[in-house]
């Protein structure tokens, strides 16, 4: 194995070697490695290329903030782009490929972009390539599209499964470092229901820095605390679970990675936790900031803490000779760790002129410290080879040059305040520590109007272990108390406080760097945004931080600016000559890190993508080879094609047969709502435009329903069951909506009326037996008297037919003799088969929704959703006959009296017959001769329904036309989308006059 693997590494198991490949090259790592640590161990410094300039890039971090090390992972059904190597756990057989380069990582043609960097400044899309105009489309854009872009989009269906889970907890603790553990322990001991999630695969966070806790090594305390938490029944702990977002009223999303590290393991790949939390403790730590010096994007330049993590966690030395550049005490910890491993640290550059005791400690260890100094820049061919030292306050005159292969940069820490900010928590700028911290006076509020999130430890700007424990414990007690628990008295875990010398903020290094240097200082590595870009944006007037972000794309990459945002806005503040808090931050939005589409979808894919509602006869239709049509969530047979028959031919056959013999329709989907009570009649008089109170028990009446603003919302037949009881039929898609509409008016307006409603749609199967031989079929089944005298048109009766207890309605939507037979849903399939058997000698055939539609159009019956679109009133459709003139009021009546509704120019329903017999295109508009201001022809009507009528052997259509009913015989012109025109004559909307019912 590589010489970069050194001793130590508390997170890896050297007895378990793992094999993996990177760009096809075989490599080895250990159990516990991340892909990033394993790549570094194999000496792979170059891991990708940047988005815009295709500059070579290496690993910068050891966590989810990584901007550079994004790889294509896996293949085929398990291919995933943009996976962060720093959070990808290594497993045996892992296959990774670098992305964003062509033809190869080492030889990338897009690097030309880098040579032309001066043509690609902030806002280059809007400027450089605008002229000459045609060049954008034909030259610039294809070039940019080809050479830019992140990972590849997967080409296969995702081969993994995913799931969601909903839990309600008192306290959600995010982060399993010592602060989060303390919080979970405090809340858990108090009896609160606690969920503790940690994004990584191990507890304790950045444990190596921690002092002893309660007199024992931090590692021991962590292990004991995790054991204690696991033993508490009311506490759930989850590793590999990233808290993605905080939403209103304590709703949170967290993603658990179940088999990402073990792809052959059983069960779903990822689980999305939907958590409803009473209180949230955000122990999310802090993210180290890079320093902005020239060449800071070269492979080998890393965050100081990341260098330390690779050393102590994974036993990997990113460099043999590392220059540490810092503006705070924490950088020294990396120097000490390097020294501890016997690695060379030629110099510690400290921006502070008086670094205090920490520098003394360094010198005692034999390390060389240069106070008041920084980097003039780093250079090297494809990776760090040389560091140039300069005075921190100067313009970059080089004082010294050092050979090195790694730069550990420590720019200070930014608390990970994302979860605090997602649901509206505000921040304030802490001048001493140079960081945005949560403003405890402006927390995100829960349903009770009180703070629902509290940040602790480093997330609250408390970088020391003692403070992390103290704030964590206190927050755990707070969260438990707030959710109704009574914590027992008892001290929390303690550690010795650590005194540090304050940070000296450095936003540009050196502070007086010239423009040339500033054009080589990267803020956002992934999106290639430099100090000079932000300054340019400011000069060009994009001064608001939100404008700067969008103009430069700072912080808009997949890492969402975790490294770059604070540095970027500090540079912007400087350019504006204002303090940092005056500039403010951009908005933190969920998710904290990207989540997979699979996790978002959960179970909702394939057959479970959405519910499909099936009638009791569904399987029978399927066996008959039904061609399905979705109607709302229902599946209805559109037609029943026979072998060798097209769908269109089937529709025509079904229509002809129904009109000549008898057809069967599965009408189970029609909504059925029972309305009962002393005020039921009065209530229906308000709901329908027609009079329902005068309907006699045993009889049926067609009714129209309008919304309060007058528009048609539904229609259907109402049957009066007895004095107090009505059964209202609705359209197929309308049952739930209309039932809700009824309940809304009953509950919120007429609550003193004595009426109950019940949606009984699903209790019944309903079969339409339609056609001249309908009665013959039912008589063949045998049972109740269905003669004209016993059951006249628009009446209903209860009885028995073919041995089934049934309710039969004599209603028609086709003009033919028609019965609708309703039986218990559990008997629907049996009745359907009985009808087919009984009707065999009569030529019975099932028919689908298209035949239904054509037959209703032949008779001029309107269809909700075709003739209506939410802007149509009954008066437009010639349905004034269905509006009672005797009623004082009904829903929609007042609205139908408004000026716009009574306008004689409203388009009204007519029939349309093409002159050549063809079928008008759906939705076609009739034009007139005048033109509008844009030179387009004005319209005077449109087609609402259009079909081929096999009964008439020609196209028929219905439409809404200005003054239509007064223009019988006139010919209208309907332009098609293909430039042709169809001429159609205005006729009465009833095409098939004779026959029926």
């Amino acid at each position, binding site marked *: 194995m590589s010489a970069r693997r050194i001793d130590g590494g508390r997170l890896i198991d050297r007895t378990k070697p793992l094999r993996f490949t990177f760009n096809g090259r075989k490599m080895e790592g250990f159990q516990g490695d991340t892909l990033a640590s394993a790549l570094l161990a194999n000496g792979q410094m170059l891991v990708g290329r940047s988005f815009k300039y295709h500059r070579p890039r290496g690993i910068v971090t050891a966590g989810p903030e990584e901007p550079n090390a994004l790889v294509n992972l896996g293949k085929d059904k398990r291919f995933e782009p943009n996976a962060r190597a720093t959070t990808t756990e290594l497993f045996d057989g892992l296959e990774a490929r670098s992305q964003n380069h062509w033809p190869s990582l080492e030889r990338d043609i897009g690097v030309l972009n880098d040579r032309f960097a001066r043509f690609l400044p902030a806002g280059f899309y809007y400027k450089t390539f605008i002229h000459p105009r045609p060049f954008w489309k034909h030259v610039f854009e294809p070039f940019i599209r080809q050479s830019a872009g992140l990972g590849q989009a997967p080409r296969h269906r995702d081969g993994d*499964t995913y*799931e*969601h*889970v*909903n*839990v*309600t907890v008192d306290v959600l603790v995010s982060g399993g470092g010592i602060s989060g553990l303390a919080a979970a322990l405090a809340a858990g001991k108090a009896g609160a*229901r606690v*969920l503790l999630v940690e994004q990584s695969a191990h507890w304790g966070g950045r444990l190596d820095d921690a002092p002893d806790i309660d007199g024992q090594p931090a590692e021991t305390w962590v292990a004991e605390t995790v054991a204690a938490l696991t033993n508490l029944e009311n506490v*759930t702990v989850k590793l590999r679970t990233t808290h993605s977002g905080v939403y209103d009223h304590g709703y949170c999303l967290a993603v658990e990675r*179940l088999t990402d590290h073990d792809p052959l393991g*059983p*069960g*779903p790949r990822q*689980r999305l936790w*939907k958590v*409803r939390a009473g209180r949230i403790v955000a122990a999310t730590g802090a993210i180290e900031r890079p320093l902005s010096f020239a060449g800071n994007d070269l492979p080998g330049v890393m965050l100081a803490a990341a260098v330390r993590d690779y050393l102590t966690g994974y036993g990997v030395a990113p460099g043999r000779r590392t220059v540490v550049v810092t503006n705070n005490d924490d950088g020294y910890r990396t120097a000490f760790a390097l020294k501890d491993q016997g690695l060379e640290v030629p110099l510690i550059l400290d921006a502070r002129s008086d670094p205090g005791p920490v520098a003394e400690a360094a010198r005692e260890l034999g390390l060389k410290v240069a106070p008041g100094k920084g980097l003039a820049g780093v250079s090297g061919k494809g990776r760090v080879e040389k560091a140039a030292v300069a005075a921190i306050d100067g313009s970059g005159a080089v004082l010294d040059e050092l050979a090195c292969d790694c730069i550990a940069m420590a720019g200070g820490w930014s608390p990970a305040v994302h979860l605090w900010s997602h649901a509206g928590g505000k921040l304030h700028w802490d001048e001493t520590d140079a960081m945005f911290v949560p403003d405890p006076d402006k927390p995100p509020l829960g349903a009770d109007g009180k703070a629902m999130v509290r940040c602790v430890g480093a997330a609250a700007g408390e970088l020391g272990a003692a403070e992390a424990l103290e704030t964590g414990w206190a927050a755990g007690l707070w969260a438990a108390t707030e959710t109704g628990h009574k914590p027992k008295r008892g001290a929390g875990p303690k550690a010795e406080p650590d005194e540090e010398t304050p940070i000296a903020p450095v936003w540009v290094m050196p502070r007086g760097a010239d423009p040339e240097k500033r054009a080589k200082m990267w803020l956002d590595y992934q999106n290639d945004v430099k100090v000079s870009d932000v300054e340019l944006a400011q000069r060009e007037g994009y001064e608001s931080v939100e404008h700067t972000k969008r103009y430069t794309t700072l912080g808009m990459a997949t890492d969402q600016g975790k490294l770059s945002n604070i540095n970027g806005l500090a540079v912007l503040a400087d350019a504006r000559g204002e303090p940092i808090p005056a500039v403010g931050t951009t908005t933190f939005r969920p998710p904290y890190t990207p989540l997979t589409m699979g996790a978002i979808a959960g*179970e*909702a894919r394939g*057959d*479970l993508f*959405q*519910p*499909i*509602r*099936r*009638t*009791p006869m569904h399987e029978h239709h399927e066996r008959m080879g039904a061609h399905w049509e979705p109607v709302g*969530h*229902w599946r209805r047979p559109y037609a029943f094609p026979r072998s060798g028959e097209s769908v269109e031919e089937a529709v025509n056959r079904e229509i002809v047969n129904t009109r000549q013999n008898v057809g069967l329709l599965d009408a189970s989907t029609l909504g059925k709502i*029972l309305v*009962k*009570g*002393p005020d039921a009649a009065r209530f229906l008089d308000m709901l329908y435009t027609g009079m329902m109170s005068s309907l006699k028990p045993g009889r049926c009446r067609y009714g129209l329903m309008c919304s309060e603003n007058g528009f048609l919302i539904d229609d259907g037949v109402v049957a009066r069951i007895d004095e107090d009881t009505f059964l209202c039929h609705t359209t197929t898609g309308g049952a739930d909506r209309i039932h809700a509409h009824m309940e809304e008016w009953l509950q919120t307006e007429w609550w003193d009326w*004595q009426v*109950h*409603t*019940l949606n*009984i*749609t*699903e*209790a*019944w*199967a309903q079969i339409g037996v339609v056609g001249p031989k309908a009665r013959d079929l039912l008589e063949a089944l045998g049972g109740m008297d269905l003669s004209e005298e016993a059951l006249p048109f628009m009446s209903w009766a209860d009885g028995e037919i073919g*041995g*089934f*207890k049934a309710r039969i309605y004599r209603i028609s939507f086709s003009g033919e003799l028609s019965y609708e037979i309703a039986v*218990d*849903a*559990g*008997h629907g*399939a*049996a009745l359907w088969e009985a009808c087919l058997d009984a009707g065999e000698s009569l030529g019975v055939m099932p028919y689908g929704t298209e035949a239904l539609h054509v037959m209703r159009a032949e008779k001029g019956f309107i269809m909700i959703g075709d003739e209506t679109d939410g802007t149509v009133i009954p008066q437009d459709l010639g349905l004034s006959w269905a509006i009672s003139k005797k009623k004082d009021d009904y829903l929609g009546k007042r609205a139908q009296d408004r000026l716009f509704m009574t306008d004689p120019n409203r388009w009204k329903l007519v029939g349309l017959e093409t002159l050549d017999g063809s079928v008008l295109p759906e939705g076609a508009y009739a034009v007139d001769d005048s033109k509008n201001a844009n030179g387009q022809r004005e319209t005077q009507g449109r087609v609402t329904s259009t079909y081929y009528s096999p009964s008439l052997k020609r196209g028929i259509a219905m439409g809404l036309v200005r003054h239509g009913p007064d223009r019988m015989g006139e010919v209208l012109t309907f332009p098609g989308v293909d430039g042709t025109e169809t001429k159609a004559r205005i006729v009465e909307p009833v095409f098939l006059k004779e026959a029926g019912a």
Partner: protein
Amino acid sequence: MSEPVSALGGAVFDGAVKVTELPPRAMFSLKGDLASKKIVKAATGLTGVDLPGPNSANGAGENGILWMAPDEILLMGPRTDQATAAARLEKALAGTHHLLADVSDARSVFLVEGEGSALREALARLTPADLHPEAFPVGAFRRTRLAQVPAALWMRDGSAVEVLVFRSVAAYVFGLLGHAAAGGSLSHF
């Protein structure tokens, strides 16, 4: 008349929990003033169980009363002679404002059985309702949703939940429960 059939003909799925579509039962929706003595007497008389309070249900074998809303209960019983049962109810309810409907075939009922936390965990994959034993004890009944459809959950005992959904989505819900039963342990409930 033929025997009534359930939507899925008694389908069964065996995973971390067992899902069984139960055979048809008699079910009556009864709406009215639940404080009315007539309504209480009619309901308890038919089913032999007490009227449950809000968000709970009482049951004995196939008999039961489920609290659906402040003015609605669902009565359950064996699928034998519904017509006689309905007539008996109507007689008992005469003179009081109510709505009674035989809805025996409107819903599908799934029995979901599992040991320990597996049962609650399977359902928690599909509903936002808090299924923690403290919030959803034995006897609890809640109308909620399972993924994208309305559903009602009745905690019959520590290891069995009855899931009621509308008949038309029985296949969808059976698929959902199968998916949920395939997942591993959450170590949460």
